[in-house]
C-alpha cells in the first residue's frame, strides 16, 4: 500500500497522453498547437529531445500530418495532437496514411464545434468525422479515454494497434478529460506490453511492400533499411506501383478493411457494470460514461434494474456486443455530447426491435447524471404503461 501511494500522482489528461506516447516508444511529434490539446505539444517539445526524439511545430495541421507520416516511414513511432478544426485539416493525409498503411497516432482532444466553436468547452462532436472524415471505404480504429489513467493506457494501446495493423489509430479524447487532473498510478514501463511493427527479413532479392502476411498485414521495411520501394496514395499492387486493375483494386480495399475487421478480438475494448440482470442499459463512451455510471448507481438505489456498458473502442463499432445487449434489455439509453451521432450504430444493431433513446447536449458542458437518471426513470414508466 505504501509503495502504491508513493507512485500515485496528480496528472492532467493531456499530460497522461504525452507520457503514454513516450512510454509506447514514440520519438516524433509534429503538430500545430490548438486548445484544448496544446499541453500535449508543450510537454513533448520538452521531453522528446531529451530522449533523442524530434519535436517539430509545423506551419499548419496539413503539413503536421504529412511530417508524422514521413517520420513513421523512416522508422519512428510518431504522433500528432489536435482538436476539431485541426482534425478537419488532417483528414486528407489521414486517408493517405490508411491507404499507404503507415502506422501513426492522431490525438483529437474534442472541443465544442462546429468550426472554431468554443475552444475551452467540451464535446463529443467528432465521432462520425473520426469514422468518415476522410473519403473512400477505409478502416478506422478509434479509442475513447474516460479518465486520466486511461488517457495513458489507451495512448500506449493506440500505438500498439497502429504498429500491429499498420494503420493510423485515432485517440478521441475530450476537453474535460484532457484538462482535468486526477490521481493516477502509472504502471512501471517494464510491465507495459509494447508492440513494434513487423519487419521483412533482411536480404530478400525482392521486397514487395504491400504483400501481406497471413493476417493481412504486410511486413514494413523502414526507409533506409535497405529496400527501395514506392509509396503512393494511388491504388497500388503488392509491389507498391500504381494500378487501375479492377481485381487488384478490390483486393487492396478489401484487405485494408479486413486486416482490421478480422481481428476485432484484438481491437474491441468494452466494460460492463451491473448489466447482468439489467432491463435498461445505458451505453456510453468517454467522459459521458462517468455521468452514466453515477446515473446507473442512483437508479439502482431506487430499485431500477439499470446497467452500464462502456465503449472504449468506438471504431470499429462493437456490433456483436451491442447486439447482444439489445436482445437482453427492453431499452437502451445512449447519452452522448452531441446531437446524436454514434446512436445511429446502436439503432442499426437494435434493428427496430429494442427501444433506443438518446440523451444529448451541445452546451459545451458535460451531460449530468440527473439528466440520464431522468431518462432512465421515464423509460421505466413507459414499460409499466405498456403492461
Amino acid at each position, binding site marked *: 500500500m505504501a509503495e502504491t*501511494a508513493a507512485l500515485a500522482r496528480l496528472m492532467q489528461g493531456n499530460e497522461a497522453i504525452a507520457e503514454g506516447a513516450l512510454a509506447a516508444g514514440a520519438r516524433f511529434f509534429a503538430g500545430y498547437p490548438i486548445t484544448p490539446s496544446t499541453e500535449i505539444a508543450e510537454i513533448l517539445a520538452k521531453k522528446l529531445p531529451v530522449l533523442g526524439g524530434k519535436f517539430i511545430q509545423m506551419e499548419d495541421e496539413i503539413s503536421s500530418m504529412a511530417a508524422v507520416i514521413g517520420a513513421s516511414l523512416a522508422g519512428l513511432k510518431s504522433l500528432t495532437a489536435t482538436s476539431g478544426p485541426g482534425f478537419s485539416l488532417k483528414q486528407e493525409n489521414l486517408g493517405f496514411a490508411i491507404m499507404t498503411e503507415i502506422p501513426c497516432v492522431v490525438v483529437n482532444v474534442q472541443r465544442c464545434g462546429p468550426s472554431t466553436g468554443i475552444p475551452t468547452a467540451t464535446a463529443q462532436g467528432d465521432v462520425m468525422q473520426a469514422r468518415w472524415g476522410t473519403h473512400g471505404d477505409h478502416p478506422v480504429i478509434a479509442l475513447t479515454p474516460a479518465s486520466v489513467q486511461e488517457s495513458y493506457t489507451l495512448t500506449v494501446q493506440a500505438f500498439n494497434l497502429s504498429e500491429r495493423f499498420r494503420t493510423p489509430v485515432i485517440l478521441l479524447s475530450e476537453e474535460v478529460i484532457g484538462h482535468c487532473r486526477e490521481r493516477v498510478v502509472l504502471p512501471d514501463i517494464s510491465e507495459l506490453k509494447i508492440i513494434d511493427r513487423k519487419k521483412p527479413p533482411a536480404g530478400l532479392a525482392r521486397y514487395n511492400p504491400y504483400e501481406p502476411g497471413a493476417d493481412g498485414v504486410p511486413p514494413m521495411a523502414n526507409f533506409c533499411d535497405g529496400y527501395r520501394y514506392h509509396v503512393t496514395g494511388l491504388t497500388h499492387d503488392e509491389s507498391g506501383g500504381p494500378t487501375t486493375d479492377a481485381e487488384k483494386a478490390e483486393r487492396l480495399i478489401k484487405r485494408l478493411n479486413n486486416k482490421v475487421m478480422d481481428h476485432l478480438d484484438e481491437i474491441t475494448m468494452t466494460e460492463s457494470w451491473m448489466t447482468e440482470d439489467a432491463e435498461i442499459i445505458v451505453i456510453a463512451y468517454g467522459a459521458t460514461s462517468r*455521468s452514466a455510471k453515477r446515473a446507473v448507481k442512483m437508479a439502482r438505489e431506487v430499485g431500477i434494474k439499470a446497467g452500464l456498458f462502456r465503449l472504449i473502442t468506438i471504431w470499429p463499432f462493437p456490433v456483436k456486443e451491442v447486439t447482444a445487449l439489445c436482445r437482453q434489455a427492453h431499452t437502451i439509453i445512449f447519452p452522448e455530447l452531441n446531437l446524436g451521432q454514434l446512436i445511429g450504430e446502436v439503432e442499426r444493431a437494435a434493428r427496430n426491435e429494442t427501444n433506443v433513446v438518446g440523451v444529448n447536449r451541445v452546451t459545451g*458542458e458535460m451531460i*449530468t*447524471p440527473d439528466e440520464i437518471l431522468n431518462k432512465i426513470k421515464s423509460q421505466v414508466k413507459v414499460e409499466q404503461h405498456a403492461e
Partner: protein
Amino acid sequence: MSQTSEILLSGTGGQGLILAGQILAEAVVRDGKNTVQTQSYGPEARGGASKTEIIISDDEIDYPKVTRPDVLLVMSQEALNRFAGLLDENGILIVDSTYIREIPAIKAKVYKIPYSKIAKETLGKEMVANIVALGSLSAISGAVTKESLLLALMSRIPRGTEALNQKALEIGWKSASQFAA
C-alpha cells in the same frame, strides 16, 4: 461508508484560482486520497469568469463535476451571485470581502476575509491573494493537511517565489481563526 467532499472555487480570470485548485488537488493526492480537479474558463488570459472544481473521496470518483459544493470560495461578486445557490445548507461559504459587498441570505456558514487586501498590504503583492485564500480555505475546511499543502504549493510555483508563497499560505492559514465565522 465513503466520504466525499466537493469544493468549488470561482472568481475572475487572472486571480489564480485554477492554479489554487490544482495545488489543492495535488495536496489531496499527497494525503493519500482520491481526487479530480476540473476547470472552466474563457479564451482570455485575464478577465471573464473562471471556475475550478475539486472532488475529494476515499473511493472511486465517477462524475467529475461538482453538483452540490460543501465548500464554496468566491473572489468576485459575479461568482458569488452565480454559485451561492448551489451550496449545501451545511456548507461553508468563503468570500474575498475586498471585492464582495453583497452576500445573499443563505444557511451556510459564511467567512468574510479580505484576501486581496491582505495580500496587497502585508505581502506587497495582490498576485498571491489566491494562495492566501487557499491556505485559509484549507484551514477552515480541513480538506488537506498543512504539510501536504505546503509540499504541493512548492511543487507548482515558479522558482524564486517560494518564500513569498509560503508566507502567503501561512498568513492565509492563520486568517481562518482571525476571521472566524
